[in-house]
């Protein structure tokens, strides 16, 4: 049968025992991310391919003019995740897995519910025409921690995205092609960064950015979405090993520090891609 | 805790809820409904602590039927597979009734052949009701049944009533026979799983139960699908007994041979269809006459 393979007991204990000695199977420290590479604009504005270790996620942002819901002056931000069977034999085409639901909901909460994007700024004519921003997320390679990788890809793509300029004269709405007028970036209030923790040994050991192997062994996860203003945007833990409140508070602090590091990397990638454009 | 617990202490119920420490004494053994957290024995269900010697268990007030070897159960065939029937008896898994564990028509001491496997559906098919006894358990915890006695087998001429299994206590008599008035008989099979079969009674109570030297005709008749002729009077009697059992269950009283009869008497002044709605009144009246 296709699908995910089970792990043997000895593999599990190997991972856990190594952690007890303070060593991760890939040699990282507990609070260390895998190598992060952010490639922006491979396919024009608003595309970001992010490689977190070997986990690879492609995010693409597109925009179209649509009619808003009844008399609203807000635009739309839509997320679409696709867990391609390309990424792992465990993903089956056309079936919405629980994992996919959780990842797409987390992204929506991290970016949309935390109001990272100014949706009012997407309005062209109130009640008539607004921009609908669509973020398509493609998981291409699954080596663990899809969520963090997808979140970085989504937010990087949104930061990189430019929409065509629009002028409104009376009833007349003109959308200017990109070569005619400089396109406009989205107005983004803050940069939410998602940090996933994996717990082992009944919650005694914790790591960030778990690999696929670690994800299969872990006793539960804890996801923190935080920005550089030290604002918690979303948190999620469901089941798994129980944690003390003190441990949770400690994790949020670690997450805030990690988020600052990741934000720096995203900004670096943005600057670099802007320089190439010039 | 004293191992010699007095009668009075027994009567006092020790009620615990999940996560509550039952005892911190390490001499006790862990039974159903508990787990060990370090030295402590902790409850996993909301229920009453039971102790048999050093074995401590917590019995939940309500739970799915889990059964023990020797229990009489009533169940419904849910699937016919090779060499076995699967029987839904309201437990956490369907039970299995092996072809080898039933009496076959044509004499008991016959070899089971492949043609018997092909004809299983002619004996018992999906939806048929049976009474049976739990013979044992498989590795995964599902029960194995047998019907190798003429008192077990296919059920006919009556209807099914289901009640919480906790209301049926293990006793000597699960095949009950009531003579409600001269010539009016009703049989009740009280399955330990809470499935109760109420049917037209046999005229002679002695005929039920284990009949020695069973004849071949009896064995053939075992799997017939035809109801006996039933009079309207008998139908009403079956309905009344069924409703009485439901009324007892509604009031969470134990369902026993004697109590069914008492409730039946108490119900006589009430229209059959109103029995369940007036359960409290009837049960109270029945208890009075206890």
């Amino acid at each position, binding site marked *: *049968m*296709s699908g995910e393979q089970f792990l043997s007991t000895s593999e599990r204990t190997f991972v856990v025992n190594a952690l007890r000695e303070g060593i991760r199977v890939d040699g990282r420290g507990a609070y260390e991310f895998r190598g992060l590479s952010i490639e922006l604009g*491979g*396919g*024009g504005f608003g*595309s970001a391919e992010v490689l977190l270790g*070997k986990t*690879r996620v*492609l995010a*693409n942002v*597109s925009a179209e003019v649509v009619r808003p819901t009844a008399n609203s002056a807000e635009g739309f931000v839509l997320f*679409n995740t*696709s867990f*391609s*069977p*390309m*990424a*792992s*034999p465990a993903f089956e*085409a056309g079936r919405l897995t629980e994992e996919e639901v959780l990842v797409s909901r987390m992204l929506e909460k991290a970016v949309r519910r935390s109001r990272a994007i100014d949706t009012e700024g997407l309005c062209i004519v109130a009640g008539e025409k607004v921009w609908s921003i*669509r973020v*398509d997320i*493609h998981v*291409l*390679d*699954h*080596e663990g921690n899809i969520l963090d990788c997808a979140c970085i890809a989504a937010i990087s793509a949104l930061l990189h995205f430019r929409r065509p300029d629009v002028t409104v004269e009376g009833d007349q709405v003109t959308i200017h092609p990109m070569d005619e007028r400089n396109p406009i970036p989205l107005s983004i209030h803050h940069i939410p960064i998602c940090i996933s923790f994996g717990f082992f040994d009944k919650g005694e050991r914790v790591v960030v950015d778990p690999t696929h192997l670690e994800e299969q062994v872990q006793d539960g996860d804890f996801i923190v979405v935080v920005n550089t203003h030290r604002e918690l945007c979303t948190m999620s833990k469901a089941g798994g090993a129980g944690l003390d409140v003190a441990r949770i508070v400690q994790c949020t602090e670690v997450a805030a520090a990690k988020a600052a590091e990741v934000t720096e990397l995203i900004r670096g990638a943005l600057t670099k891609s802007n320089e190439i454009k010039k | 805790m004293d191992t010699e617990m007095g009668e009075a202490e027994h009567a006092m119920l020790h009620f615990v809820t999940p996560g509550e420490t039952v005892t911190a004494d390490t001499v006790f053994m862990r039974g159903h409904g508990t787990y060990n957290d370090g030295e402590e024995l902790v409850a996993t269900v909301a229920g009453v602590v039971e102790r048999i010697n050093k074995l401590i268990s917590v019995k939940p007030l309500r739970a799915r039927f889990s059964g023990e070897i020797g229990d009489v159960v009533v169940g419904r065939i849910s699937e016919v597979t090779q060499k076995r029937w699967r029987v839904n008896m309201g437990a956490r898994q369907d039970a299995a009734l092996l072809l080898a564990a039933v009496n076959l028509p044509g004499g008991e001491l016959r070899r089971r052949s492949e043609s018997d496997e092909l004809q299983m559906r002619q004996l018992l098919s999906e939806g048929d009701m049976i009474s049976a006894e739990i013979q044992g358990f498989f590795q995964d915890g599902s029960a194995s049944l047998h019907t190798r006695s003429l008192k077990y087998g296919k059920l006919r001429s009556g209807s099914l009533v289901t009640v919480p299994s906790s209301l049926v206590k293990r006793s000597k008599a699960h095949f009950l026979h009531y003579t409600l008035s001269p010539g009016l008989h009703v049989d009740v099979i009280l399955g330990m799983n809470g499935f109760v079969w109420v049917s037209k009674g046999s005229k002679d109570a002695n005929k039920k139960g284990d009949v020695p030297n069973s004849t071949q005709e009896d064995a053939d008749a075992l799997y017939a699908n035809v109801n006996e002729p039933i009079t309207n009077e008998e139908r009403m009697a079956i309905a009344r007994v069924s409703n009485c059992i439901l009324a007892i269950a509604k009031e969470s009283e134990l369902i026993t041979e004697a109590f069914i009869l008492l409730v039946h008497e108490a119900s006589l002044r009430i229209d059959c269809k109103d029995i369940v709605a007036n359960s409290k009144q009837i049960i109270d009246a029945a208890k009075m006459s206890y």
Partner: protein
Amino acid sequence: MVLQRSDGRTDNLQLRPPTTTLSPLSRADGSARFAYGKSAVLAAVYGPKEVRLRDELLDSAKIEVLFRPLVGLSGTTERLYEKTIREILESVILKHLHPRTSVQTFEGADDDSSSLILSCAINATILALMDAGVGLKSMVASVTCIIDDSNQLVLDPSAEEIKGAKSVHVFTFDNVSKDVTSCVSTGVYTYEQYKSVFEVSQSACASVQAVYRQTMENKVGGVETVDEE
């Protein structure tokens, strides 16, 4: 008059050198990215591997193709792409060598959703199959041509050029039998135009096949090639 195409090419029959990346993915048995200009496709191959019971074929491998667009959900166009690619693969993979197994290929468009993407997808898939070491009868390669509004034949058009085209042709050729492995043409065109399209496509495909070869040789890498002797 010097012709200037929107991306700077000076000849209508000029093929942009395709960019290829071999095995970018870690989980798949084989993977490749193939791009004409900004139109790129990533393909992954799993197999031959255990097949689902209901898909089992007694005498050959089951071939499954899944195409996902960059933006939005897949619809009827993606089904047509899947069918086209699957039919190509069924004629090209030595599927009778692997009965009762399945070969799955997944294509994801990386950019752009014009017809050009079908050519990229076919080429990326063939490269990914080679990367996965799946036995093939021959190498097939695909190119796209258009007849533009001034009835000029344009090879390997950009997305803008396709928008204004009178007709669009996607041709796939086999390098052994020189047969057409697949053709998908839309729009309105004459028989003469059609004939010129497949002549141009055939020779262009040969140069794509040369790119395949180069890509695979690079994979072998380090090992010095035989041209020393």
